[in-house]
């Protein structure tokens, strides 16, 4: 498996660390309540299809990356720097 790091280009999967759903970028307000926090930290859409998840190019430049990917085929549709994505969602 290969992923395209927005900084380094296409690299072997072994250089990357995987964290999970990119929902992690949308951290709730501390006062949002336990259901919202439970959803944020635990519950997942877990799609059999296109998903967005968070990886770090740990064995490379260190960038955290949002990868848009298909969980059925492993096709990679898009990659973007997490800091850019976060910047755009606020």
């Amino acid at each position, binding site marked *: *498996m*290969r992923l395209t790091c927005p900084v380094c280009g296409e690299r072997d*999967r072994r250089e990357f*660390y995987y964290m999970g759903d990119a929902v*992690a970028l949308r*951290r*709730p307000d501390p006062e949002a309540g336990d259901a919202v*926090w439970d959803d944020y930290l635990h519950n997942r859409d877990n799609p059999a299809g296109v998903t967005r998840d968070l990886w770090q190019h740990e064995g490379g430049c260190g960038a*955290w990356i949002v990868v848009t990917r298909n969980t059925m085929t492993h096709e990679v549709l898009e990659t973007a720097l997490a800091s850019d994505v976060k910047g755009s969602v606020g």
Partner: protein
Amino acid sequence: MRIAGKGLVDRQAPVSFRFDGHTYQGFAGDTLASALLANDIRVVARSFKYHRPRGVMGAGSEEANALVTIGSGAAQDPNVRATVQEIYEGLEARPQNCWPSLTVDLLSVNDLAAPFLGAGFYYKTFMWPRAFWEKLYEPVIRRSAGLGALSHQHNPDAYEKAFAFCDLLVIGGGPAGLIAALTAARAGADVILADEDSLFGGRLNGDVETVGGMPGAEWAQSIVDELEAMPNVRLMRRTTVTGAYDQGTYGALERVAHHLADRGGQPLECFWRIVARRAILCAGAIERPIAFRNNDRPGIMTASAVRTYLNRYGVAPGRRITLFANNDDAHRTARDLVDAGVHIAAVFDSRRDVPESNAYPIYRGAEVCNTSGRRGLESVTFRTASGEDKVETDCLAVSGGWNPSLHLTCHMNGRPQWSEAIQSFVPVEGMVPGLDTAGACRGTLTTHGALQEGVAAAQVALEALGIAFDKIDIPEAEDAPYRVSPLWAVAGKGRAWLDFQNDVTVKDVKQAAKENFASVEHMKRYTTQGMSPDQGKNSNVAALAVLADATGRGIPETGTTTFRPPFVPVSIAAMGAGAQGAGFAPQRFTTSHAASVERGAPMIEAGLWYRPSYFPAPGETTWRQSCDREVNMVRNAVGVCDVSTLGKIDIQGPDAGAFLDFVYTNMFSTLKVGRTRYGLMLREDGTVMDDGTTARLGETHFVMTTTTAAAGPVMRHLEYVHQCLCPELDVSMISVTEQWAQFAVAGPQSRALLNALVDEDINDDTWPFMGCGDIIIQGVRGRLFRISFSGEHAYEIAVPSRFGNGLFRELTARAEALGGGLYGMEALNVLRIEKGFITHAEIHGRVTAFDIGMERMVSQKKDCIGKTMSERPGLNGPEREQLVGLKPIGPVKQLTAGAHLFEKGAAPTRENAQGYTTSVGFSPTLDGFLGLGFLRNGRARHGEEVMMVDHLRNLTTRCKVCDPVFFDPEGGRVRG
């Protein structure tokens, strides 16, 4: 038997080798199989279950019968296909799965018991009495199962792994692959051409048909010569592409030195990770047998294998050969044999419309329905409309048609589709992105077709790569139609083999269907068909057809067959190359490593690091003596310990303080420059992630310390928090763990030691407790932190790592002069237990700030990672197990870590378990064992007596629950 004038082997280069204890001769270019056949050796193996004698069946890597063991001693290599193993001078091969010998195998008694050993028999018996399974039935089954044996010794051979990159990977170097590679290479693409054979050419080497007017093998060689001269081509011989993976990654096994008597330092095998922008599969096809009664006798081979042995190796596998086929292609075998002067006794074809020949009798509409011969084929019985008859023969060439080698196209869950035309499965386009197919593997079974498709596939690839190409002339080649009429199993009594290796017969498949294992997956799992070393390459399609017949369905409705990597079995040593011994993970050495080893310190692993356990002094015979001395030394004089392995992270930027406030539970933006503060870090789920001290070296400059184990994870976490949660903060992190060698100097004499070493005057004003800053040490700019993990007046002193060794030796000498010295991990552990300081033994991933009594460190003035979730009801309160100290109070004085805690008098059961011990040590300071542990509602239970039970070490100790700080609870020493 060798045939004069035939074959590509080098008759000028005789090679002697051993098989089954006898020495034989072959020629350079022979495989073990061809050389054995040349020597008229027929029985080379025994089957898996019935221990039936078996001979060579094919001529390729899919060989189901001729598996042998190569070599002896630690290097012995089991289950090697004789059809792939090239011979070399001194090669030693042995038969396997037989006892006492290949010819007399006692377990062939299984063959007589076959009626009781049908598909799945073991699910129905061996259940009584229960205890007999492990003691009797299973050991017997295990001993009789299995094929070859491992040596039971450490692998002595070198293996290697490598990466390669190319524009186009061509898998298989037959006519399609060669011309595809040539087309792409001439256009300038970076090409890798891999073939599992030692010789490129594929079937061309086993056939007599011409290509472009030349013998096929010569044409192949001419293409290889051209490719070899091109700088943009890498030819990989003896290299099997074993798997297709995501984004154009392929695994490939190169058998580097299996064919060499002298490897000259080369590895035995190399496992390649090939990244290809495009790939073309040109893997050819595999001829399939036909199932009929006793179709497994030595001497019964595939028709193409017989042809290959004749044309490539100059070997006739028999003197009176018969042929049984259902397609035109196979008749070429009879033709070639006759041309070479070998006697053809008869040709049986199940069809009526069959190619003519005057050279041998042809039986139309005929089926072979039985064979005989004790240790090899002696005769076959055949059936025609006019009844049964028998023909004497020592070799039967069988062809049930061809199955495309489409395996790689299925490696990403793709399913092939059924082709009525060739009565087999063919690949579906796009099953592996970027992989096209050409030639026989896509069902095109003529050389002309293969060449045409090879060029076409290359052109498709080049277009996708954006590389311009010129027209390429396709040489003239054989283009006879492949006519096949389905014949899977000849009707009749007795056992007809489908999966030769696993001894799965037509009966077994039918039996499975009858017992409702009617889906193909159930049938395979129930009968074990397709699970043998050939992975069903020889049997899957036929077994599916038999199952379809048994269940009254068509083949496509019955199911498809799928394939998983690897295409051929791959040794664990190849894919795991480099890891044997210490290679599994990098070793990390501190700058004081050599000095510690000189002192006789046993070095222990701490993650990837090595740290000294203790420093034995003359006369000390146990680690405890050393440890006690070292603890006393720190408490009474001064000790030195390398703490460089702790993670150190440089954090800089205008928002560094704000950032730290967010990742730590407590405030750091308020920390004064020149001061250090203990910090607690949570995961977002509210449990403790790590702890450590962070120093503020400047207004916008901090240095964070992590535990050794968490250095990597914390660095990743910080980057995560910054990049993913608060990228707006202007802050940057970089690890400085490696930059600084850092040593703890601890004990009442620590200040005296340092004052003699540095120019600056160290006192409580210049370096108060938790003070930090730059300092010059013998001309070297370093850093000094007044922090303590021992509870003593202590410092950590850091210098750039190149000076680490020098400073360590200097500190050691000075400490010893003051009555102190070095201390290791054991003493460090006792010192911190005495003080109730926690490590990852306590913060093991399930504890909260509340559990360790630090809930007040979670600042209420700000948000931080983990704060919200740490407030969940289940993470707080009296039900939680809380950190406590434990002291033995009864006659048993010993404590152990990993024991459980119970109320006094309670039975030591799970229901009664109230906690457990995490760290224990003998405190020479307090003259007794001390323990840290977690106890339900423990903070409210100080003074209570509990029972520590360690079933595993047979220990029950009465303990008093106390505060985890055993020594100097007021903390006077650290400030004094």
